């Protein structure tokens, strides 16, 4: 399936910017699941200072906002051809060893409720089935709802709050899998929802490593493993490693953010 993506992020500043940097994870890479046919990043109100690999093998761009700018617009767009791999990314490894994906992170520290979720995973004869079952129980405990959580909400907080978005679902899934000793990671990307072109937001899901299959994806929010409607952007141990854009701005003033995302065939 060829997916055409246009992802525009606009920052508006109420005071001219003196110095601001944004780190982009906005370059999909070709792999068994997807082939990037064309892809471009354009920046208005700033400049791409450099492009390099991060420690997970993602490609990052570092953007410097022009001094005095009141707006920065980052547009990532292109076409990606996808295959349905039934969510199995497989035995493909970067420079980060598997043990790195078993360690806790700030947003995925387990508590007793997450440990309880992970219980059926331990010694499960069908780990894949147990993971799908866990994914379903996470969604029933934390139904999808926007506006209830923030980018810094932890897995524990989202589970306690009983509502969350894809990032929260992925964090809970990752945290619970790690409790069971399974390497787990965060994947950011895009999903084409069948009934619409304009998507609410970019997407995220979890991948868990099984010795038999390698990395397998679980989209808790939609209760499935990723198929040909999914495009991978970046991976990491949690959202902070793989967020499409993260930034830092010096000086006073406020900013507002508008994201528009279109994914279509």
């Amino acid at each position, binding site marked *: 399936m060829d997916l055409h993506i246009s992802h525009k992020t606009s920052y508006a500043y109420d005071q001219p910017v003196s*110095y601001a*940097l944004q*780190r982009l994870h906005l370059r999909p890479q070709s792999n068994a699941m997807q082939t990037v046919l064309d892809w471009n990043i354009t920046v208005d109100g700033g400049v791409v*200072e*450099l*492009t*390099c*690999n*991060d*420690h997970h*093998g993602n490609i*990052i761009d*570092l953007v*410097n906002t022009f001094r005095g700018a009141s707006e920065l617009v980052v547009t990532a767009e292109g076409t990606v051809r996808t295959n349905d791999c039934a969510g199995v990314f497989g035995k493909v490894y*970067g*420079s*980060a*060893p598997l*043990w*790195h994906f*078993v*360690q806790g992170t700030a947003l995925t520290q387990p508590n007793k409720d997450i440990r309880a979720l992970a219980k059926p995973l331990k010694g499960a004869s069908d780990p894949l089935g147990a993971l799908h079952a866990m994914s379903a129980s996470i969604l029933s405990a934390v139904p999808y709802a926007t506006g209830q959580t923030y980018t810094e909400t932890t897995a524990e907080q989202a589970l306690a709050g009983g509502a969350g978005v894809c990032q929260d679902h992925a964090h809970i899934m990752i945290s619970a899998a790690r409790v069971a000793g399974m390497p787990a990671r965060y994947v950011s990307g895009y999903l084409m929802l069948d009934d619409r072109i304009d998507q609410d937001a970019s997407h995220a899901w979890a991948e868990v490593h099984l010795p038999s299959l390698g990395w397998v994806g679980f989209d808790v929010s939609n209760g499935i493993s990723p198929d040909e409607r999914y495009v991978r952007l970046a991976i990491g*141990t949690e959202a902070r490693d793989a967020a499409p854009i*993260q*930034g*830092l701005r010096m000086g006073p003033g406020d900013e507002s953010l508008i994201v528009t995302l279109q994914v279509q065939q």
Partner: protein
Amino acid sequence: MTFRRFLPVLIAEPVESVNFSIMNTKPDHFDEMRVGDTEVRPPYASYKTWFDDQEPGRLARKSKEAEAFFRRTGITFNVYGQVAAEERLIPFDLVPRIIASREWTKLSKGIEQRVRAINAFLHDIYNRQEILRAGRIPIDLIAKNAAFLPQMMGFSPPGGVYTHIVGTDIVRTGEDDFFVLEDNARTPSGVSYMLENRETMLQMFPELFSRIKVQPVSDYPKNLRRSLAACAPKSCNGKPVIAVLTPGIFNSAYYEHSFLADQMGAELVEGHDLRVVDGHIAMRTTQGYKQIDVLYRRVDDEYLDPLTFNPNSMLGVPGIMDVYRAGNITIANAPGTGVADDKAIYSYMPDIVEFYTGEKAILKNVETFRCGEPDSLKYVLDNLADLVVKEVHGSGGYGMLVGPAASKKELSDFADKLSARPGNYIAQPTLSLSTVPIMVKKGLAPRHVDLRPYVLVSPDGINITPGGLTRVALTEGSLVVNSSQGGGTKDTWVLED
């Protein structure tokens, strides 16, 4: 950039009068100057002859001159936890510590071997992790280590060098017994004292240096510059621009930062002077932004890049880790080198040296009990009064227990701390450290010393300045030499052949 100096508050120990009888040393310590009560060890023979010829009172006056010299140049050191003495002079003792050329050759071979192994270890840990695959050190020691920086994975720093500057702490217990106490692979401090101590001695006793041939240390800043320049990234065209990044004037080692920048002819910068410009880190100058190729940073990893690490850091340079990974700057020392000088890793150093060099370690390790292991913890708790216990990530002598010097209450309080977080501590037997005499009111008296040689690493090779910084515990019988804990320093001589 201006070169700022402090007006120090002086709390040195004045030497009032001197007589020349040497006080008896305890027989269980190796005295580097004397054998028995009368015989002088060969490296000290010429010095002792000169010393015995000195007119009584001259050395006492010289000692005061040294104080004045330091007061003028302004070597100060902030002592944390002592509000009344926030900036003080590190006491300087004018009796040199003397090492024979033959002794130094052996020592420096051992240091070089260890530093090569540390760099190979760091490259391995951040890339293929062969040593973990081989099961030679436990994965959790790295995986759960706060000094391990995932952001360094899958990356080779320019020239393959991680520890551009190392300060290996070494102690001596006998004629041929040297032990490594700590591998300081982050940002070892104190080299300015090594240089100023020699400068002071040269000014006070020029005749001594014409009589005794001592290997020079004054090349250090030039060698540091050359060594850092040789590690410049490939993107550097022409002569590398080097800068020293300091946290600022409130840092305890600010004097040293400004001193080294001045001596190397490098810029002294703070985080707010730097920006990302054209994919490089550049400093603000009167002619606009100027690209920096090598940053000798004296800011800890956690504060180095608020975009990557602690977002609240005002001391660092946002985006520098991306510039680094893009190959556009050299950071010295590389981020994440702390995983090699951690006190828990230390206990594996003999294995690490053997794994990467294929040779037995030349320098010995002090026997180390990892309190995270139940058997070791039991032993340590049972023998606390005889052991030195340190925090795995501690430095500067803070938060450590010296068992033999501790009161019953201190021992029992520490045992509670230890039992609560055993993995946070290691324990070592107290070594009977060598002594070198210092000048006290009654003459010469032995005091315990350690040694921190300064090692420079570049693709061109390893350069070790002959000698280093000798730290001396000024209190009789004390084993704690850290300047933050009331230790002093001495000039360190390595004799010419």
